[in-house]
């Protein structure tokens, strides 16, 4: 993969970050990404990030769990090995509810968590480049990609960052 040249500014406060992102939108600057030590509310619409579709995926995984549990128990008790328990019908639906529910939750949870790490590009032992060690502590970061940017654009980015209150402006190749 090609190395990325990144210009980034570090802010001290999430309110500064939010107003900086608003400012960047007005100037039509192309922000590569924003990093923060905790979720900053109100940032997603400014960055044009759409709502995560994880919950839709979760619904599908859950439905698979429901069907797996219910159809499997139905198959076992009506086709594969029918046994009468306590004089009840073979297909005793109310008794299937607890396990059907549990497997719905189990499938939805595991599916969503696996999907979440997959789309984030994260997982056990994965190492992603970190722009600055203090981003997970108390700094809020706006980053621009400057691989193909000309001198003017880079200058524009730099002045934008310092004007909007970035405490430090640096470049890093990741």
């Amino acid at each position, binding site marked *: 993969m090609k190395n990325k040249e990144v210009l980034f500014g570090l802010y001290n406060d999430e309110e500064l970050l939010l107003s900086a992102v608003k400012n960047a939108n007005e100037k039509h600057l192309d922000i590569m990404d924003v990093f923060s030590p905790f979720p900053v509310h109100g940032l997603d619409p400014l960055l044009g990030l759409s709502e995560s579709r994880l919950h839709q995926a*979760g619904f599908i995984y859950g439905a698979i769990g429901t069907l797996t549990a219910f159809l499997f128990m139905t198959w076992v008790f009506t086709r594969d090995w029918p046994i009468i328990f306590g004089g009840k019908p073979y297909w005793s639906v109310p008794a299937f509810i607890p*396990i059907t529910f549990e497997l719905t939750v189990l499938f939805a*949870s595991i599916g*969503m968590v696996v999907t*979440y790490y997959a789309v984030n590009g994260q997982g056990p*032992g994965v190492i992603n480049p*970190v722009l600055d*060690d203090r981003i997970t*502590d*108390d700094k809020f970061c706006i980053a621009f990609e400057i691989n193909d940017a000309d001198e003017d654009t880079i200058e524009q980015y730099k002045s934008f960052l310092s004007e909007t209150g970035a405490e430090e402006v640096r470049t890093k190749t990741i």
Partner: protein
Amino acid sequence: MSAIVSPIREPLITGHKDYHQITEDICAPSERTPSTAWVIAFMVAVSFLGLGMFCILWTIWFGIGTWNLNRTIGWGWDITNFVWWIGIGHAGTLISAILLLFRQKWRTGVNRAAEAMTIFAVLCAALFPGIHVGRMWVVFYFFPYPNTRGPLWVNFNSPLLWDLFAISTYFTVSLLFWYTGLVPDFATLRDRASGLRKKLYSFLSFGWTGAAKHWSRFEALSLVLAGLATPLVLSVHTIVSFDFATSVIPGWHTTIFPPYFVAGAIFSGFAMVLTLMIITRKILKLEDYITIEHIDSMNKVILLTGTIVGVAYLTELFIAWYSGYIYEQFAFMNRVQGIYWWSYVGMMSCNVLSPQIFWSSKMRRNVTVTFFMSIFVNIGMWFERFVIIPTTLARDYLPSSWSYYSPTWVEIGIFLGTLGIFFTLYLGFTRVAPVVAIAEVKSILKTAGDQYTGENAKGGHHHGHDSVKEAAH
């Protein structure tokens, strides 16, 4: 963040913290050499764990006959301890999931440790069904896997099998939820560490960077997992109660069991969270994050659930009398005045009477009182399960088969062993992971930090120390 701050809310973070100070305070315990107190506690816990392992091996080697169970009383300390531990686990999920859905900010100070407690308690609980079957080397028969005996399937209509599914699902979902929340905090530790620690936390933090889209997904995932965990936690103890309620034993065969068990589980779990939190905040110096306000809130839950449990006890007695059914009446009279009357007294006094002192806000905010109360509640809830299980079984249908049960040293040893497992894991956890959710505490700082709330909030944000002092006078 344009924070909406209520002037009457008490601060949940004290000591005028800023973001960096929060990181420093919460990371500190896992970055310094363990204190002598920790080392001693850990050694004691590991000794108990060792005792427990020995007693489990003893049970495996000589068989279940090393326990004092008999033909009449087939469930004793094993299932009592199982229900006790699984109940304790419930508070963690309640705090992390239900309070997230209700947007209760005080959950952030305690959710991490409470979820850890859930996972360790469920592990201890899951041990008992495994060993009480006697031949634990064929315990995999529990699972419906294609086998060469037909395949002969397990009985999907049995509450005991529902329990297996409920508990394994509960454990898995709790673990996923907990770990997902830990990843950003492991990244914080990674970015502060060097050498081997850096490698360890790089592995554990899954390559977290804090990108906006990742946080957005993180919040979406947390919300849905909370939404799934909430009915799950209610279902788990409901299904545990089905183990009893679907049987035809007078005293067990009651429809009140599911809500009564769930309330009892939350009650005992909060007590255990309080026991752990009071020690943790003191030893790890986290009083600014786990404040008196947190303890007060948890004591309110204790009071509420303790009273619900009390109402359930009285309802049971009333319904037994009102039913006009002598076997039911006998079962309950036997609980109150039978051979195990002392366990009924222990249950009533610890669970119903003693929490009533929490009507007083002075008591709710007194750390010493709360600590002893939390121990009482744990003892009381253990007695409750003992009352339900051996007391009921000891006096069954035929007086000729009536019996008495007291544990052997092996059963006591296994119980002490589970306490050892629990505390070994918890103490290990306090060394490896941040015991307070760093990112979550930071996200509520501007709405719940003491420099932003109450009197101090009126003049706007960013007061220095001097103006805060002035405002206080």
